[in-house]
């Protein structure tokens, strides 16, 4: 899994305000516009940032969740969850 679609989802949220509004108001419709798998969709719905990070999502783009509290994710929630993630950078 390349997580390209997840990256595109977040990047589009920043650069396309109409898409961002859709992601906030109708997240299922927004996700359907992106090449993301069912597993990835579930992780987004759950705000499961640890799973997303462990599967290769760039943390900078992932943290866009907190810019607009997408899927209800706040900074404290995000921080607590991301610190549970296995960090694949450090072997």
């Amino acid at each position, binding site marked *: 899994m390349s997580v*390209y679609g997840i*990256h*595109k989802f977040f*990047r589009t949220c*920043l*650069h396309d305000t109409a898409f961002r509004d859709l992601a906030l108001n109708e997240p299922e419709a927004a996700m359907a516009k992106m090449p993301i798998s069912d597993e990835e969709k579930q992780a987004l719905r759950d705000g499961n940032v640890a799973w997303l*990070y462990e599967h290769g999502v*760039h*943390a*900078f*783009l*992932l*943290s866009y969740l*907190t810019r607009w509290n997408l899927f209800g994710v706040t*900074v*404290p929630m*995000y*921080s607590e969850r*991301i*610190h549970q*993630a296995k*960090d694949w*950078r*450090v*072997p």
Partner: protein
Amino acid sequence: MAEIVAGIGVPHTPVFPSQVARKGPDCEEARLYAEIEAHLSDARADAILLFSNDHFNTFFLDNFPLFAIGVAPATSGPNDQTPMPAYDVPVHEPLAAHLRRSGVLAGFDIALTQEFTLDHAFMVPWHFLNARQRTPIVPFFIDGFSNPLPSAQRAWDLGTMLRKAIQAYPGKERVAVIGSGSFSLEIGGPLADKGERSGTPDKVWAGHIQKRMEAGEYLQLISEATGERMARAGNAAGELLNWLAMIATCGGGKPLTMKPQVDHGHAFGVWSVP
């Protein structure tokens, strides 16, 4: 024969413009940037080669260059909603075209970017250092943010090549060189501070980089700054590559001054240009 007249390293922290606007000209960041702006102004540059790294704003993963150079009459920014003034930015198109051509002929596989805007990585340095002077820039994009990064040696070799290319430019331009970014910074990852979106996970590494630079120990720094080592200092720590390219372009001398902001994992530096 163009001439290299200044070498500068600065951070591009996106909150600095709004913070400084709020805190006023006596705050630390304002003073650090102002000193460098004065140095740059004294150098009377006709063009500024600016190494920085896009943060998925100018480019995305549908077509993500490892190295790219902006060759156009002008650009603008910021394109990433950084809270700061918007600027139109002149580009030194003939020098940019010359450097791209020279680079390709010398075996550097540099993407050509003829229509583009810039994110905070370029616009924060512009705002603090060049918004008054408005010296035309040559924007040089180095991937310092999306793994795998170019090696530290490759960034150094890039600068060494560009130094020769600048010196071979058929014009009398005075060229300043800026590298921009952090030595240790994590945004959104597990190395961020608890409760925060970002953090400075490896102040020791940032301090070590500063010592290596002050001693001119670049060969050692290059061998230490592996992709893994930089990654352990945070997911923006690859921005060191922008500094290495700048230093090599300036001939690999020591900094004249280097002032760290330890808590931020970055520094403000001015280089000798032998």
